[in-house]
């Protein structure tokens, strides 16, 4: 009885999967886009707009920039990389794995010290010096750009060594983990990306935006990969991402700066 029900359910699931696969819109071309985890949600919002405007389809793969770098070196079938940093796209371009001259900064991130609770973080970040907290979440400074930026801010404030000595830093593998530490209340506050906590102009909880002079710009570079057979479509997509007013507005609303 149970096994028959299970078989029925799995058949139904299979049928639905096939139907879903068939229902995908017929597209002129399909671009495989490797996108940094921090921009994945934003690109998911942008993709339908581009697909509608161009008739081409975007297939998004989310991951860390370091993982994509390794995978692209090993022949991963991506057409475009939207990285979370500038170093890896630059290196790929230098190694001939990217189309020369196609690299540009599609978004610049903003670092924010954030707590989901009101009144924890003041607008000047004085709370950092007060020491009246148990732990601060940050992303791994060696691999995650936002982690490196957080380290630069804490170093500029003269707090980096002390916080390390006092074991007050909870280090997440990436910026999303740092956000999760704070969102679940396991740390009092965390250095995260503005794009993670802003919803339009609204930010729930309390926050401090460190001056941009305290950390190196969080530029995120895009690159067309040399192995692509769809260069014209890839160029059209990156052009759209860079210049379409609607696209730029969506990126800004997600908490990024865009260079004019």
């Amino acid at each position, binding site marked *: 009885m149970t*096994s028959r029900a*299970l078989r029925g359910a799995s058949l139904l699931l299979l049928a639905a999967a096939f139907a879903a696969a068939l229902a*995908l819109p017929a597209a002129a071309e399909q671009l495989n886009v490797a996108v940094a985890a921090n921009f994945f*949600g934003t690109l998911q919002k942008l993709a339908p707009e581009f697909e509608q405007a161009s008739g081409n389809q975007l297939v*998004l*793969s989310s991951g860390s920039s370091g993982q994509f770098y390794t995978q692209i070196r090993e022949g991963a079938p991506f057409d475009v990389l939207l990285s979370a940093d500038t170093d890896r796209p630059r290196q790929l371009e230098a190694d001939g794995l990217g189309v020369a001259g196609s690299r540009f900064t599609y978004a610049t991130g903003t670092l924010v010290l954030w707590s989901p609770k009101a009144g924890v973080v003041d607008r000047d970040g004085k709370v950092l010096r007060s020491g009246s907290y148990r732990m601060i979440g940050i992303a791994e400074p060696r691999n995650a750009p936002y982690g490196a930026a957080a380290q630069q801010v804490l170093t500029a404030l003269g707090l980096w060594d002390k916080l390390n000595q006092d074991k007050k830093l909870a280090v997440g593998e990436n910026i*999303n983990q740092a956000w999760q530490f704070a969102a679940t209340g396991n740390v009092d506050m965390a250095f995260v990306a503005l794009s993670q906590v802003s919803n339009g102009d609204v930010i729930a909880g309390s926050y401090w935006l460190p001056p941009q002079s305290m950390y190196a710009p969080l530029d995120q570079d895009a690159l067309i990969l040399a192995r692509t057979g769809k260069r014209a479509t890839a160029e059209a997509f990156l052009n759209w991402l860079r210049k379409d007013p609607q696209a730029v507005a969506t990126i800004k609303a997600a908490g990024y700066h865009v260079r004019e």
Partner: protein
Amino acid sequence: MSASFYSPDDLVALWISLKLAAITVVLLLLLCTPLAWWLEMTRSRLRVLGEAMAALPLVLPPTVLGFYLLLFLGPHGWGGRLMQGLGMQPLAFSFGGLVLGSMLYSMPFVIQPLQGAFQSVGARALEVAATLRASPLDRFFTVAVPLARRGFITGSVLAFAHTLGEFGVVLMLGGNIPGRTQTASIVIFNHVEAFDYAAAQRLSATLLIACFALLLIVYTANRRVPETAASA
């Protein structure tokens, strides 16, 4: 099970996961049955070496195992060059690559129950069969395999469930490509990364409930089987 409950990507990923787990289990049974049998029966000094190697995939973090497989199977790696030399596409970023990675990753979960089951069959039953002039092959298929049924069931279930939940290896080796190498566990990760917790919870619950039902069925069947098999 409407289209709004699962996105098309969710359904395709579930299908890829099921297909991957099923193929992995079948291939592992074919490969590990003779291997576990040899490990249990041999008096060779290579035995401990074989046992240690068969347990090794448990040690490495999955992403690291995936990384080494990627280097090995990629166009610059030894395995990738061999494939290209044979006129085939490298296995990295393909479903075939995921099958290979999953087999390595889940192998200990098949070998160890099988070896334990063959051990519990014991030499005596096989010796009795031998005195009745059963050939070695005969003894294996008509005595050892039926008596070791529990090991086959346990190994299959563990490998199936382990492959369904696999993440690090498939992410690194597969490249998270929807419709090709994106499994259900990776889609759950994507939903979490995109802060779509509702979708992540729907898919997680689906995996949990499906696997729990599967395990219940198998363990219920497992309880009924062995007594009769042992007295056969």
